[in-house]
């Protein structure tokens, strides 16, 4: 069993441009690895193609070039080995909260009895702190509860890999905070590999083992992978007092404000030496297979 459960090699996505023969390249030669049980978030400006990368991992979109291996098997379509939490909850509105989770569980284990399915669903719903109102339809649930059901549905499939596309994007700050806590809880209980897209820097630091920073599109790329070495268990209240928290935060914000633009279009990235941060930065993070630093991605502690 390889240490890496997900390998994305030389991923590229482009669309035909307005003129004949012209191509709009969203990103090209994107390379990354996800370790088993790792929580990785991906941050970048709109249009950098991060959702496209997630959809390629999910099998809902095909890359123009390159490919993805999950657990050694090539991804050539959506499948039950990867669960997806979509941006706008995507619950089936004619089914109750419980039925929505049951629906997914039944699809994965069609041979299970009704009772078994329900118990299984209820276990994951309660992991996501949902014990009441399970017979309510999604429209009768609050935004936070809907997203909890979506998360419970994904985790209930017990897949090795979970993909989350800005799951908290539509929620207010308070709800977002409590669901983040629940996500941490359910993830530490199950230790699955999570790849999550977010716009929220604090959320990324709170949840992640590593944070991928993407340059702006077109021709976007993952420029850096910031290792968040803040010890777990983490919680929202304490994490900001951790020495180095603001160094990581400032580094990411500086990237998003400044360098994501400067680096746009370049496949290579700035010398790591120029980056001043207390966190550990890995670059290439087991990233670029072209320069030979694939499996043993050299980690460098920065002063």
């Amino acid at each position, binding site marked *: 069993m390889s240490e890496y459960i997900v390998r994305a090699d030389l991923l590229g996505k482009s669309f035909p441009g307005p003129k004949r023969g012209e191509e709009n390249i969203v990103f090209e030669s994107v390379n990354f690895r996800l370790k088993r049980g790792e929580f990785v978030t991906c941050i970048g400006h709109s249009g950098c193609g991060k959702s496209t990368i997630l959809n390629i991992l*999910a*099998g809902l979109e095909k890359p123009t070039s390159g490919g993805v291996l999950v657990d050694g098997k090539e991804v050539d379509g959506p499948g039950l080995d990867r669960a997806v939490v979509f941006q706008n909850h995507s619950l*089936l509105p004619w089914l109750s909260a419980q039925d929505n989770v049951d*629906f997914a569980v039944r699809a*994965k284990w069609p041979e299970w009895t009704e009772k078994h399915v329900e118990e299984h669903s209820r276990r994951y719903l309660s992991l996501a702190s949902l014990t009441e109102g399970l017979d309510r*339809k999604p*429209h009768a649930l609050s935004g936070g509860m809907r997203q909890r059901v979506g998360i419970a549905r994904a985790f209930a499939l017990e897949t090795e890999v979970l993909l989350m596309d800005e799951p908290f994007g539509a929620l207010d700050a308070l709800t977002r905070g409590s669901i983040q806590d629940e996500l941490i809880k359910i993830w530490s209980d199950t230790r699955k590999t999570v790849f999550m897209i977010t716009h929220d820097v604090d959320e990324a630091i709170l949840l992640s083992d590593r944070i991928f920073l993407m340059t702006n599109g077109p021709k976007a790329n993952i420029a850096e992978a910031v290792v968040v070495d803040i010890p777990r268990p983490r919680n929202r209240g304490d994490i900001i007092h951790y020495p180095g928290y603001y160094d990581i935060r400032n580094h990411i914000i500086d990237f998003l404000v400044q360098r994501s633009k400067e680096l746009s279009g370049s496949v290579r990235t700035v010398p790591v030496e120029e980056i001043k941060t207390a966190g550990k930065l890995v670059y290439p993070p087991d990233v670029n297979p072209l320069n030979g630093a694939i499996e043993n991605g050299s980690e460098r502690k920065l002063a």
Partner: protein
Amino acid sequence: MNRNNILAGVLSLVLLVVFLSVWQMLTTTTTHVAAATSMSPAEVETLTGKGMSGADVEAYSADGLTFDQIDQIAGLGLTRDEINSAGGIQSFGFTTGGAAEEAQTGFPSPTQVWREASEQIFNPFYDRGPNDKGIGIQLQYSLMRVMTGFVLAIIVAVPLGFLVGMSPLWNAAINPYVQVLKPISPLAWLPVALFLIKDSEQASIFVIFICSIWPMLINTAFGVANVKEDWLNIAKTLELSRMKTAFRVILPAAAPTILTGMRISIGIAWLVIVAAEMVIGGVGIGYYVWNEWNGLNLASMIFAIVVIGVVGLILDFALGQALRLIEYKE
């Protein structure tokens, strides 16, 4: 909201009352001539001789009854008071001369229509030969035709709509035909159907079928084609088979749109059956209206028209309720 509903109800009632009184006024001032029949002393004597009091004879003749009618009443051997307490002479099968005159000379008044209606409502299933059947039997025939044509249309339109909705290729291929066939009046098909099927019953069912099919086909295709991408993605990530996706995701998602199509269809079908039956004849609510017109039974014709409206309302209400059952909020 609630207050508004009550106000609306009151206003509706006021409008109805105004409408009915104007109708009543217009139809009675011109035609209601319950002229008293004059009777010769000899005739009066004959009647009193049969045991009827002079006062009763006068009262009946003032009602406009003829000598023959009063004579028959006298044969019953009951006083006017006894007859009145038993429901009046109408309940013994007599009509007053005034009323008979009214029905024949002008447009019926609301009270006449009501009299006709109450008779029909309490005996809707009588059958006195091919040209005189109760309104219940007429409705039964019409509804059977509508339901048969409608169900056949569902069987064809919903699967076809699924195909068209799921496949842009089929959509593009079939769309021109739908666009050409849709605006053809269903009645235009009637001669074709009569020639091909050679059975008026089946021809009218065919007409219902052909007029019901378009709204259902178009709505099903639209509903299926517009199922949210997110829900289809859920089905894909759960590796549902095509059949399961169709039945467990697309069908429930498109069901409200499909049922709305059915609701439009049944409305059109109910409009069309009346016209079709007028042409085809035999039995059915449409033919009934036409037949009453030919027999100048205007009161009964108007009653039938009201019944058509009420049945249409019930059909629409039934599908509206079904729609509420499968509707979902996002």
